[in-house]
């Protein structure tokens, strides 16, 4: 409780400081960038690290002289993963706050609700959500940093093919992420000669998945199980999986992208495989890996500042912000259209998610090599082959 009042006090002080600064900042002419994230609500474990990352790095950039000689001002709203609120905040960012670019949109639903606003206003928008529909078909002002769910499926199926697995079961979350990835996996399974024999789902807040897993266990011929989903669901699935003594390999998705998954699932996590960005294995990368300095730098800073384990979600926000900042430097102006053009020309940008090479046809710029196949051993991530 003391901590709580402490925080209230601090907020009161900072609010006053912000108000005072706000008045001063207007005079000093800042560059405004905006964000609407799901910092609370069902996707708060995405929005929370994303928000912290943005605030942390904007402060950092400003301490180092800002961009093009001007200080950045970050306007950040919490849409609680509600598409309608996201849409309202998008309008507010454009109309009221007058931002010149946006990095945000934790979920696909929120992102897609905001897209028309930024397309109409001609404001570059770098989304932090997963689904492939955000950038396919390409939209003029919309970019994204996380790998698509389709790529995750491909990476998983590639690994299965290598291990001679062809008959699998799926248990997917019914939230946006799980539902979309399930669809993508069904789409590409054929290309890898993979047959889906069991297809179960669970709700985003479900507390026990043993009935679904019992069904999968009872299906003959299943050689592996894939679990698209994020949040607490995959941790519970993994625990229930071990509880029921299912012994075929379990593949999780890139939605399980932080050390807290291993903590939550405990010993049950041993042997689980998943595709993920290099960020999770920062300290295990070879020294000559070009990503090594970026990912270790971000990981150290995030963990020291917040005291929480790093997640790839925060990494997406880092990538988005840095791509934007570099584009602003190259453009040398605050014209949204010029910044958009420069974002599209991003080449060889090394972020936490991989090396980004964008083009007019590709507003993501990552390929399958950006994913590493990881396996959990002795309570830690290891890189497979």
């Amino acid at each position, binding site marked *: 409780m003391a901590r709580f009042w402490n925080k209230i006090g601090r907020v009161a002080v900072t609010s006053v400081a912000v108000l005072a600064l706000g008045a001063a900042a207007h005079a000093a002419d800042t560059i405004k960038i905006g964000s609407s994230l799901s910092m609370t609500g069902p996707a708060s474990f995405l929005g929370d690290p994303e928000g912290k990352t943005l605030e942390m790095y904007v402060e950092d950039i400003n301490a180092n002289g800002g961009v093009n000689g001007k200080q950045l001002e970050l306007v950040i709203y*919490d849409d609680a993963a509600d598409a*309608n609120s996201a849409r309202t905040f998008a309008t*507010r960012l454009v*109309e009221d706050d007058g931002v010149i670019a946006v990095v945000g949109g934790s979920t696909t*639903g929120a992102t*897609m609700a905001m897209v028309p606003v930024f397309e109409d206003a001609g404001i570059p928008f770098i989304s932090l959500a997963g689904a492939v529909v955000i950038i396919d078909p390409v939209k003029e002002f919309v970019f994204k940093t996380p790998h698509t769910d389709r790529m995750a499926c491909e990476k998983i199926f590639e690994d299965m093919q290598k291990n001679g697995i062809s008959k699998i079961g799926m248990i997917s979350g*019914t939230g946006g992420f799980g539902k*979309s990835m399930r669809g993508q996996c069904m789409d590409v399974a054929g290309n890898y000669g993979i047959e889906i024999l069991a297809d179960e789902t669970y709700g985003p807040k479900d507390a026990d998945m043993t009935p679904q897993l019992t069904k999968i266990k009872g299906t003959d011929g299943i050689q592996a199980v894939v679990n698209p989903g994020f949040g607490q669901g995959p941790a519970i699935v993994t625990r229930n999986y071990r509880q029921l003594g299912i012994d075929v390999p379990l593949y999780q998705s890139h939605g399980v992208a932080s050390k807290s998954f291993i903590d939550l699932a405990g010993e049950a996590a041993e042997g689980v495989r998943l595709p993920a960005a290099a960020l999770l294995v920062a300290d295990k990368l070879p020294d000559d890996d070009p990503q090594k300095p970026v990912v270790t730098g971000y990981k150290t800073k995030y963990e020291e500042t917040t005291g929480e384990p790093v997640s790839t979600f925060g990494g997406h926000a880092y990538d988005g912000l840095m791509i934007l900042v570099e584009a602003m430097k190259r453009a040398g102006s605050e014209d949204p259209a010029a910044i958009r053009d420069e974002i599209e020309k991003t080449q060889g940008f090394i972020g936490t998610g991989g090396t980004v090479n964008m083009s007019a046809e590709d507003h993501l710029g990552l390929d399958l090599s950006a994913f590493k196949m990881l396996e959990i051993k002795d309570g830690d991530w290891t890189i497979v082959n």
Partner: protein
Amino acid sequence: MRKLMSNRLAVPAFLALLVVGLAFVMPSNFYFRVAALVWISALAVIGLNLLMGFAGQVSLGHAGFFGLGAYSVAILPAQFGLHPVIALIAGGAGCALLAFVVGRPILRLKGHYLAVATLGFGILVSMVISNEAWLTGGPDGMPVPRLALFGWRARGADTWYWITGGLMVIGALLAVNLVASPTGRALRALHDSEVAARVVGVDVGCYKLIVFVISAVYASVAGSALALVNGFITPDAAGFLHSIQLVTMVVLGGMGSILGSVVGAAVLVVLPQALTVFHDYEHLMLGFMMMAFMILLRSGIVPSLSMLIGGRRA
């Protein structure tokens, strides 16, 4: 004054003036959008208030009708090429039919049992919307075609401000006329005492059903309007939390007060925008203010204030 207040045109006329007057003081499109969202919520809340405030029946599933209205203007044009206005009308008619069918058994229940039954109905609707991704795009939602009338495309928050404001005023006008009609009198009798109403010969079941169907249509039209304004719709619109929000708006503004419906909607739509300055403390403040409002103005904002000022009910 008394004469003016009792005139059934007073409230809609006041609302119409409000819509027109506010338009002159709006600093940016963002404010037009927030106001349009207020009008949309107000429309749904007026309908729900007819059910709750006048007929005394609670519904924790009204977002289900709201969501069906929203998805009908998304799905019907995309799948069958219907014009959005036709889709809106079809959605309203569909909801009326659905409300008529489910209303019969559900409205036989009382009090909290009615609440849980409507809750179940709303959850079933949102579950279907969220799960049948082939039709609805699933939890990530689906785009809604833009509204075009005679070659003129409705876009921009200010345009929608006028359209939704107009819908809301019409909704209020129909509602006050309904309340003043013999049906309305029967409804109020029902609210005061169902048994007494039955004794004096009011066909209780029939009137409840009528008002349930009407309130479903209000919600459906409001849902369609939201979908058209946003150009994108997700299952949140049909969700349990949205149902709760609508009920909260009714109670906050004042049960049985048309003006209260608009005030309740305005408070709950504008508060989250105003509370963004509190950052992490947003929810804390929202919860606190909801409690404070209800403790201090326990009959709802409009009736409590008008009692304070005029010493009588609005």
